[in-house]
């Protein structure tokens, strides 16, 4: 029963404000004695990542996130994720964390943070 899609909140949203999206390139730089350098592109294309900070969750929503994290086995699993900015579906993503910390400050006051990364295919 492993969910293959990143879960949404009760509202249908994936993320809340503030949300962070990152595009990561990888460049290898060789520096020479005269100060010049030569640069190489290591990634054929940038890898995207999204930081999803969630607040004011109820216990059902927190439980859904927790079940998803456990089913994924932390960073191990693969799932599809809809970019909340562009609504583009990325079918090969993973979590970027082996620890999920949920805090419940009170009723309907749960918090959690997940980082999603796009895998190179």
């Amino acid at each position, binding site marked *: 029963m492993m969910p293959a899609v990143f879960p949404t909140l009760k509202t249908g949203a994936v993320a809340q404000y503030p949300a962070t999206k990152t595009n990561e390139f*990888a460049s290898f730089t060789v520096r020479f004695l005269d100060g010049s350098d030569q640069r190489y592109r290591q990634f054929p294309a940038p*890898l995207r990542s999204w930081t999803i900070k969630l607040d004011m969750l109820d*216990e059902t929503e*927190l439980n859904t996130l927790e079940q998803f*994290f456990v089913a994924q086995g*932390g960073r*191990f699993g693969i799932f599809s994720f809809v970019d909340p900015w562009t609504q583009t579906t990325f079918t090969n993503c993973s979590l970027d964390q082996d620890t999920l910390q949920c*805090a419940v400050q*009170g009723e309907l006051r749960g918090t959690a943070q997940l980082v999603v990364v796009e895998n190179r295919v």
Partner: protein
Amino acid sequence: MAYFPQLSSGATGQYPIQKRRIERTIINQLPDGHTVKFTDAGAQQTEWQLTFQDLTDSEIATLQQFFAACEGQLNGFTFLDPLDNLLAWSEALSQPAWEASTLLQLTPGIDDPIGGTGATRVVNPTGADLSLQQNVSAPGGLVYCFSAYVRSQNGVTISLFRQTADASGSQSYAAQATWTRISLSGSLSSAAGSIAVGITVPAGQTVDVYGLQLEPQPAASPYKSSYSAGGVYSNAHFSQDAFAVTTTGPNRNQCTLTISTR
């Protein structure tokens, strides 16, 4: 086996509660961004940080005695997750975790009260009442709340029950044509090491059931679905060897405990 005590209210924890799920993945990252991953299932760990405030002298004494009996991190105990459903397979009633008469007909995939299809239609075609129940390896004498969403077109009277080897209790409800959440709360006078909870469907009747949930507290919280593992941890340990108690006034104490389990 020792078990983590409840407060006088019947609750296991107070807000705020922090819960951490820890996994371990070994990753080889290649220069072009590809990754090769291996999971380490043996490294799975769950950790809770329970912060207690305004405990009475009696409550803090109970916690202190329990901590002393465990000798800090040394001895294990049973811990009931205050943020989880103690039942396994809450939406898959045909799983072996559930005990039902073979004559009871279970049809999954029925529309549920939150817009999904996680409910199950339970049909009792016989001339006798039949039950669907699950045994949970949790102390029989604690305060529990067993809850479920039910629906029936015929105003069927169904009952929720809880029972141990030496005590039992039940309550009847008239199911409505729309989804209604019903619950059975309280404690049994029992020293048993396990408790069974379930639902009884009268002879010849049909009931839709969703969101079966057992919690170690007096009232039902929002429904949490569960899969192969419920929220009962039989080999939990404290993550600390020191237990600090701060007394903030007469009969007012506070402390923080960290519990972990693999």
